[in-house]
């Protein structure tokens, strides 16, 4: 890789992967419970909750980046509070990029998990209940294992979407080499610089390879899991 990519480009690759990993893993528990709520519960205001969860799908990423900036900036109330009390700073930091990516790709995970939860036979839960399993027990022994293909599909889709995130990241945490310059931002920077076409092409090729590898891996993993859970 060293021969193919420059040190700065490797840095962008490393950063992209880190941002995506942290974003999807941090999202997962929330996405699962949001999906469970939507798939299994009936309550007033459900369409509103559903709409809020799916909002990032239709919201311009730049608008989200702006909203994050005015909420989590060190001089904004929320940002100042987090920084003063926990030393957490999102602006101009890769963790901010992960936060933006996490919010934007949240609906991808919720959708995939919700579909797999809705596809589950409710009769299995009834059977488990008569066999002595309480709600939390059923969650661990039935819902989660049976939703595994959906969870994995959601993770992979969200991961891929994270790798491509641009607008929200550049607006919220800016374009700092080694800190917030992920691959899309590096491509953008390369195009802006005179004579940067070769670098841009290399980074684009890298993006294509990452995407392909992700798809192949996702397909293989999905097949394996379906086999493991007996479908």
């Amino acid at each position, binding site marked *: 890789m060293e021969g193919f990519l420059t040190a700065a480009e490797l840095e962008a690759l490393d950063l992209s992967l880190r941002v995506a990993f942290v974003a999807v893993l941090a999202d997962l528990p929330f996405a699962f419970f949001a999906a469970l709520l939507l798939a299994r519960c009936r309550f007033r205001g459900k369409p509103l909750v559903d709409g809020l969860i799916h909002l990032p799908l239709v919201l311009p990423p730049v608008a989200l980046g702006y909203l994050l900036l005015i909420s989590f900036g060190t001089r904004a109330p929320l940002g100042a509070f987090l920084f003063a009390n926990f030393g957490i700073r999102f602006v101009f930091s890769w963790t901010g990029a992960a936060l933006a990516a996490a919010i934007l790709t949240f609906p991808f995970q919720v959708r995939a998990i919700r579909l797999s939860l809705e596809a589950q*036979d409710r*009769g*299995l839960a*009834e*059977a*488990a*209940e*008569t*066999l*002595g*399993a*309480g709600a939390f*027990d059923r969650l661990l*022994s*039935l819902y989660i*294992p*049976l939703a595994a293909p959906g969870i994995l599909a959601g993770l992979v889709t969200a991961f891929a979407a994270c790798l491509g995130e641009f607008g929200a990241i550049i607006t919220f945490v800016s374009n700092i080499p080694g800190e917030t310059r992920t691959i899309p931002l590096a491509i953008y920077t390369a195009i802006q610089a005179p004579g940067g076409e070769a670098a841009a092409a290399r980074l684009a090729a890298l993006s294509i390879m990452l995407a392909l590898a992700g798809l192949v891996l996702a397909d293989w993993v999905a097949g394996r899991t379906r086999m*493991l*859970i*007996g*479908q």
Partner: protein
Amino acid sequence: MKAGVTLQHRLGDFTLDAAFEFGESPCVTALFGPSGAGKSTVLAAIAGLFRPQSGRIALGGEVLFDSERRIFVPARDRRVGIVFQDARLFPHMNVHANLLYGWRRAAARAQDQTIDAVIALLGLEELLARKPRTLSGGERARVALGRALLMGPRALLLDEPLTALDALRKAEILPYLERLVQETKIPMLYVSHALDEVTRLADRMVVLNEGRIVAEGSLFDVTARLDLFTGKHRLPGAVLEAQIARHDEPHGLTELAFDGEILVVPHIGRTIGDKVRIRIDADDVMLALTRPEGLSANNILAAEISAIREDGPNADVQLRLNGALLIARITRRSLERLDLKPGTQVFALIKSVTVGGRESS
């Protein structure tokens, strides 16, 4: 252990209003009725999967549901085993894990030997490592039975466990069910609309129709009633219990004793003194006013007509032989020609007898 069930529930046009008991020795009660009668709803209420608008359900001394006292024990605490029609095995677990699902969660776990005994009883030794997807319908039903047994249930509810199976698979699993009934003393409520299953397994019968209990009593009394089922729900015939009296090896026949009478049927491979259930279909019984002579028929029984119900061109005639009841189906024309009335002494010619689940003539 006795279970008392009283429940009322209204849903749209359908009203369920049922009260019955089950579980006292003899322990297998069939909840019988056409589809849509409300059988599965009753079962769901007993298991705790459905909360009726009003009523009371008690098992042994414990109240599981009482609408007046606002008691509703959740399904997971009821220890009522249920075997569903579609087995409902957990697809991501192998047979062994499925079997132990309820056992692991039971407060008072059965001994390890019990697990082996149940596995042997249901013939599951070879299946333990398999996933439910790879099992046949009959195997799935057996695993579902084993899973429910191993949770240590106080009562076992069987919701048409054989309906999804073809005749061959049914014949495969019925012997297991019979052994289960004989070897475990767990009170069972067996929901079915198939009389052949009911006659092999049940001792008592509760008949549900359009949400109401229309009959409750011994299997023999209920199957001989003329007023219960009409049209397409008509029962094929009465069920009796007989004892193997003698084997006539040279002729390949077995003599069955019941109610002081002898019935001759093709050879049954059971020991003398064994009790067997027999079903005599109404269409296979002919009536005569005098004892017929010079006939090939072996089985001619003296009886008295106890009731008659006319049904289109036909008439169902209930016959009393000492204590047992039989039904004959003849044409209304024959009824008039022979001038048959309740009280008339007749001879019943029995063309064919179904022993257990098997047909023999």
